[in-house]
Structures are given as C-alpha cells and as structure tokens.
C-alpha cells in the first residue's frame, strides 16, 4: 500500500483497478455491494466508496488474489462499469452550459463520459490481454475483429459518431473527440453554422441499453447483467442524479445500478414515489457510530500493511506504544497506572470524589474487585472520562499541558480513524516509515494524529460556504466541541457527560445544510436509533457526534455520551446571540432538511 502524504494521497480514484485490487480487503459491505441488486453506498469522504465500486470491475476482479477472491468472482454474475467523478470534473460540467441553457452541454458531456466507460468495459471483455501471473479471467468473451468492427460501426451509427479507427477502441476515441467538441461548443465555437447537434440530447440510459443489445448480439452471450457503478452521485448534475436515483426502481433485469454518495444530499428525493431502501435497493452505510464495529476491518488493513513490510502476524497493538486508554479491557481492577490517575482525580476533584462515594468505591483500598462487581463495572464505565478530565483539567481550570499523552495507542488510533480507510492508511503509512519492529513511541503517534487533525480542520475550513451565512462548518463544530469540552472537563463531574447532540426540529435549512456538509466530510457521525436507517436528506431529529478525529482538538473522550438538543449547545456555549437565528426555521415549502 502506498500513499505517503497529502502530496500523493491515498485515494482510490487515482488508482488503476489492478492497483486497487492489489491491497483490497473485503468486508461485509463489499459482500452486500456484490449482490445482484441495485445498491446505494453511503459514506463520508475516505470511507471507501470508490474502492468498493472499483472492485466490481472485471479489471480488478481478475487480478485480485485475496483468499476470498475466488468465492467472490463466482458469486458476481454481472459486469461492473465504473463511471468516475470528482469535484474538478463536476465543476467543469457546471461551467459548460451558458446561462440560457439552450444547449444541454453538461448532460451531453456526462452521457459521453458514461458511454466511454461502457465501451471501455466492452474493450476489456472482448480483447484486452489477460495479465500473466495468476490472473483469473472474468467474464471474458471471444469476439473476432470483424464482428467487433461491425458492432463498433453499429454503435457509431446509433450514437452519431465518426470512427477513424475500427473496433471498440475506435468508438472510445470518437467519444473522446466528442468531449473535445463539447468543449469547443461551450466556448462558442461551432462546427456547424449554429445548428444544435442531435447527439447533444442522447439519453444515456437508452443509449447504454442499446449498446448492450449490440454487444450481446455481436458476442452471442445472450442476455447478460451489467452494473453501472456511479461514483459520487452528489456531484452529478441534478437532473441526471434524479434520473439515476429513479433508476433504482427499475425492474430492467439487465441493468443494475450501484451508486455511491455522501450521507447528506440537500435535494435528495424523499417522496412516496422515490425508491425505498430494502425494497428497491440495498442501502450500505460506511459510517460507524459505534467505534468497535470498525475495529476488525481496520485491524485487517493494518495487518496487510505490516505484512507488506515483512512483519507477518503483527497487529496494531504490536506497532504502537500503548496509552493509558489501552488498559481498559482487562477484567481486573488493579491496573496500577489507571488507578493512580483516578486516585489523583479523586483528591483534586470534589465532584469525582462524591461520585465514587455514592457508588461505594474506595480507590485507596488495595482490594481487587471482581470483574462482575458493580463497583468494578462503574470504574470501567467512568475511567475513560476520568482519565481525560485528569489529563486536561485541574480544579475546574485547564491544565497547562501541551501533550498529556492520551490520544495514542491502538485503542485511540482505531477510534480516531473511524474505520475510514483513507485516514487509517494515511496515518499508518507515516507511522510505519522506518518501522523496524520496535513500537512507535507516544510522542510520534501524537504528532501524527495532530497533523491529521490539522489537515482535517484545514479541509473543514475550505468547504465552500456558498450562500450559507455564518462561518462554515467549523463555525458550527467549534461551539459544539467547546460545549462538550466544558461539560467533560470543567463542569461538575458526570459519569456520562454529553458528547452527542440532536438536531432540533426547528433548525433552519442554513444550519442543517452546514451540518450536512460537515457530515459529508466526516466531521460528524450519525448515531441512529436502533430501528432507524441512515440519514440521507433529513437531519432534523437525528443524533450526531463529532468525529473522534477531532477528539484530541477538543479534549473529548473517544466514546458515545448522552445527547443534548443542539439548540442548548449553541445557546449554552454563550456564543453570538445571532446563533439563535439558526433555529428560526424558514417557511420553505417541501423542505424537510
């Protein structure tokens, strides 16, 4: 695995399919995505959406050598066609159409992009050389050059292309030339004298379905299944996005749609005609409100990274010098170091001392409580918060400590990366630089976590406000973080201080949209009720916590705490009274965000 720094960030978007496959570790999410059904993958940045989609491509499946690879290849009975997207491409599409919108250039560019991806898949299946060294051909077909040339001519005729090269490669080149033509049209140049080319309005779904007919006829494969894999759906033009989303209700058995998107999309269709998760499509969430759910996957990634460095049979706890938070799993109470911290806190913090007394816990006694003793259970429950409190506060005031050495060690790191492969790999790549088997010391770990946090905050600051008032994502997150920090460190000791919030029902759309952007960036994590699904359009009434990547910045525990209404957080932080405007919900018809 590579990806040393922000200069060459680990982003599956930039990787070829075989590169993605070389280090891919399957998960339950991948198994769910590989099923023969429409799918919607939802997760914040870096959560692995693009990787999962790319791993459905034949190019990736053929070279994948994981122990599960054969099983997966047998189970996938469709051909995945990956349609990439990113912010740069999205902004370019947005810039294409003149304001009078008489020529739908963005739609044409998007269609051309999809058809190129489809033809690339045809090319691969019908003629790409099979990689040596253990590749397992996946859904390959035999197609003579003559039949391919005829099929290409038919595609060109239907899509109004001029071919200068035979075969599917020629179609792909012609589609590339079409994108260049669209660029010229957008600049006011016109190959014809002002006429609008008919192909500008070519509908991509119909055009794709027609292409599949041509391919099946040429190859004699019969009716096959294909999956169009659309990445970053929230970046697509709205009309296309709506069309794709409605496709999730499609009963066309030949075409599957597997879409990825961020958790919050402002204009996500949420009416009774919209596709329904569980009925029309499978909904896959790549967020982990409970941190432990991500540990197994994260550990597998780390083990693979260590194996590549020649350290087999090692895990994260072997690599990182532990912190006090790593002592939390032992059933015995007498963990001396942790106990010493709690004793110190009890001496200096009347509230903590009273809490212990109320539970009949005497930390001075040398006796060992059994693990099932209610007092031991209570100590385990409060230890995490107490450790944080002791590290950063004294007598209700902040301690003058730059780095008390809390946020490091395997337990902390796994929580902090939130199961986000990009964060994990980015951090581990730095920590493993020069690794010789000796555990990485606490100072270096803390430094890397600090760097990652700084980068993350720089990103949050950069998320464009657009027309939203206020100070952007951090303008909302910082007051929330400070409120929780105050509750954890400086208010009277509580065994369950608030570290989550619920968005009030009267929160206005400016606030919810800002929260949504923070959610999409991964700065907030949705904490669903047991029976509720993931949130994609409506944040009101939903519960959230701050990402643990921000925990060190705000001196917060790496665990879920009780929730408070967001309005209390914003008012209670003593911030700008103007923040009350965030809860004056505008009268917007149909707005449920």
């Amino acid at each position, binding site marked *: 695995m590579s990806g040393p720094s*922000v200069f060459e960030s680990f982003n599956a*978007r930039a990787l070829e399919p075989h590169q993605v496959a070389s280090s891919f570790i399957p998960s339950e999410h991948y198994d769910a995505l590989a099923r023969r059904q429409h799918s919607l993958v939802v997760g914040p940045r870096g959560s692995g959406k693009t990787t999962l989609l790319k791993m459905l491509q034949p190019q990736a499946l053929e070279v994948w050598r994981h122990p599960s690879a054969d099983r997966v290849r047998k189970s996938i009975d469709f051909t995945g066609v990956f349609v990439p997207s990113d912010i*740069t491409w999205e902004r370019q599409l947005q810039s*294409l159409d003149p304001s009078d919108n008489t020529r739908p250039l963005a739609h044409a560019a998007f269609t051309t992009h999809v058809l190129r*991806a489809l033809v690339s898949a045809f090319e691969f299946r019908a003629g790409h050389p099979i990689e040596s060294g253990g590749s397992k051909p996946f859904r390959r077909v035999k197609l003579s050059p003559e039949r391919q040339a005829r099929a290409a001519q038919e595609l060109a005729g239907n899509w109004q292309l001029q071919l200068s090269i035979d075969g599917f490669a020629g179609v792909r080149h012609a589609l590339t030339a079409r994108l260049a033509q669209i*660029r010229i049209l957008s600049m006011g140049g016109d190959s014809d004298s002002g006429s609008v080319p008919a192909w500008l309005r070519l509908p991509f779904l119909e055009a794709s379905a027609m292409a599949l007919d041509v391919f099946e006829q040429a190859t004699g494969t019969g009716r096959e299944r294909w999956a169009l894999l659309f990445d970053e759906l929230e970046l697509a033009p709205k009309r296309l996005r709506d069309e794709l989303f409605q496709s999730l209700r499609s009963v066309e058995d030949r075409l599957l749609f597997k879409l990825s998107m961020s958790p919050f999309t402002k204009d996500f269709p949420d009416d009774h005609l919209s596709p329904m998760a569980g009925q029309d499509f499978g909904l896959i969430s790549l967020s982990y409100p409970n941190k432990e759910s991500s540990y197994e996957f994260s550990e597998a990634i780390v083990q693979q990274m260590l194996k590549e460095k020649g350290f087999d049979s090692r895990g994260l706890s072997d690599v990182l010098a532990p912190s006090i938070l790593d002592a939390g799993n032992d059933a015995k109470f007498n963990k001396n170091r942790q106990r010493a911290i709690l004793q110190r806190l009890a001496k200096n913090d009347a509230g903590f001392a009273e809490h212990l007394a109320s539970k009949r816990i005497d930390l001075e006694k040398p006796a060992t409580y059994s693990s099932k003793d209610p007092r031991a259970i209570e100590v385990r429950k409060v230890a995490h918060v107490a450790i944080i409190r002791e590290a950063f506060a004294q007598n209700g005031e902040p301690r003058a400590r730059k780095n008390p050495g809390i946020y490091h060690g395997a337990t902390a790191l796994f929580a902090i990366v939130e199961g986000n492969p990009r964060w994990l790999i980015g951090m581990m790549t730095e920590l493993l630089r020069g690794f010789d088997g000796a555990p990485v010391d606490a100072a270096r770990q803390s430094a890397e976590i600090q760097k990652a946090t*700084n980068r993350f905050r*720089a990103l949050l600051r950069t998320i*464009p406000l657009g027309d939203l008032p206020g100070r952007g994502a951090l303008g909302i997150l910082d007051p929330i973080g400070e409120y929780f920090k105050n509750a954890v460190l400086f208010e009277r000791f509580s065994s369950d201080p608030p570290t989550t919030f619920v968005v009030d029902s009267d929160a206005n759309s400016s606030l919810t949209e800002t929260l949504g952007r923070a959610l999409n960036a991964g700065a907030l994590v949705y904490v669903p009720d047991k029976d509720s699904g993931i949130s994609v359009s409506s944040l009101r009434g939903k519960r959230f916590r701050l990402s643990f990547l921000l925990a060190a910045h705000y001196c917060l525990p790496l665990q879920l705490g009780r929730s408070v209404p967001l309005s209390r957080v914003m008012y209670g932080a003593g911030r700008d009274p103007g923040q009350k405007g965030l809860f004056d919900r505008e009268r917007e018809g149909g707005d449920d965000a």
Partner: protein
Amino acid sequence: MRNVPAVSPVRGTPFDVDLLIGSLGFEARSRVLPLLYASESRCRIRLASFESQRVLSFEENRARLAAAGLLVDEVCEADFGEWLSRAMPVAEHRPLRVVVDVSSMSRYRIAECVRFGCEYQMPLEMVFLYQPAQFRHTQRGPSTIKSLAPVSRYFAGLSVDPELPLSLLMGLGYEADRALGVVEFLEPATVYCLFPRGGQDYEDSIEAANRDLVDSAPLGRVVNYEFGDPLASFVMLNSMVAGLRRYSRVSIVPFGPKIFSVISLLVSSLYGDVTVWRASDGDDVAPVDRVADPSRAVVGLSASWFSSEGRSRT
C-alpha cells in the same frame, strides 16, 4: 475562434501604449500605476471600481484619481467583460497595445482580460503589470471560503479523459493552511507547491502560513518561482503543465501574487483542459490595505495575440 498568446518579457513600465486598464479599489497601490501613466503617457486610462468593500484607501484613491482627471466606471464583476470590450479602442494598421494593471484587480477580472485577448480577432498586445506592495505582517489566520470554483467558465476547461488522475499545481499565499485545505478538498493524486521567491519577509510569511503542507512535501514537490521574473516563471509553469498533461488532468490554484494568476491563466489558455481555480473569501475576512513598495520594481509580462509571433490554435 480562440487564439493562443506569445509571451515575452517586459522591462519597466512601457508608456507607448494605447490604453491602461486598472482598478479603483481599497488598496493604496491601486492608484499608483494609473497616476503614473496619467502623468507620463498619452494613453487612454479606463478604471473600473468594485461594488463592495469601499473601505481603507478607497476614498483617498478616488479623490486622487479624480484630481488627476481620471474617470472611474462603476462596474460589477458580471459586467466586467463587456465593459472591457467597450473600453478597447480601435487600432488600425498596427497591433493594439494595452497595459493591464493587475495589482488590485480581482482574479476574475484578470481572467476576463486574458479571455479577451484569446478571443479578440485583431492583433493585440497586453502588458500585464504588477506593483509589489510593502511587506506588512498581517497575521492572517485561517478563514472561511465562500466559493471554490474555476475562476470563470472560460478557464474551467473540460477534460476529455476524466478517468485520468488529477495533478494539482498549488500556488502558495499568505492565508494560513488555505492551500492545505484546498489540496484536501480537491483530492488530487499529485500535488506540486509553487513557492514565490523574492523577498525574505514574504518568503518567511508564506512558509509560516503553509508549514504543514511544505514540511510534508517529498523532494521535488515544492517548486520555487521567481516573483520578479514572470517570463521564467511562465516557462517553468508551462513546462510542468505540458509534462503533467501527458498522463493526468491538470488544475492550477494560483494563490500568491496576482502576477502568478496572470501566468497561470496564460498557460491555461494554451490548452483547453487546464482548470484555473479561484477561492473567494468568506465574510469573516477583513480587507487589508497594501501600499506600493517604491524599492521594488514593477513586475511585468507581455502577451501578444494574433501577431507575427502568435498563432491560432482552433
């Protein structure tokens, strides 16, 4: 039809020109070149003001320009291109020669000037001049961004191969961690930082504002360019773009001195698929007055279109 420019160096401030295009803004330096040309040249001078931020030196600038007999048009951003077209005189039998003072011009307006050059169907030379400011340690901390988008439709480009990875050429400026944030936001596969050299105070300030980004840079990923030699910087940037375009999509984010924006736009205009970005500040960013530094020479770069040196690309 779109023309590509031929770029050449500029020495000093050429006065044998037909027109000067400048700005009335809140920076004291925005009046320097217009007043100089009013006294030393017989060219027409057309100045455009901004709709907002009429603070700091704005009123003094307006008074001094009025005293010199210079008129200012109130022009909103959206109308600047049209205003520019109307401002252009007709030059018969010779190329039109226009000075564009970019010192206090918005990046959008600079882009419109370059676009005008690319689309103008007569021979045209634009001399882009930049008046360096006195260094002022403004302690500009992290701030919000209102929008991050291509500087204009013309410079959005369109990649004909969107599957290619993205290479980002990131100009460094004073705003703390802003370049880092943009890199994180755009998620490029490859990043090169472009560091303006030309004054220790400035360099220290830029380094401090971009410490996290610069410190983590692998060897060769921080590329210096000489602020005082725009032609060499143009050649360097064009060379980088030409090389990177062979296997990636290329975007340029020209934070830093405005002359670097000019260079970026001129390079982009040579191709059709290189995006030049602009980040506009949020409302929490206070304007800063910049005073001309008399000890530093005006920096300039000339671009000629449809001349004996230029060539038509499409």
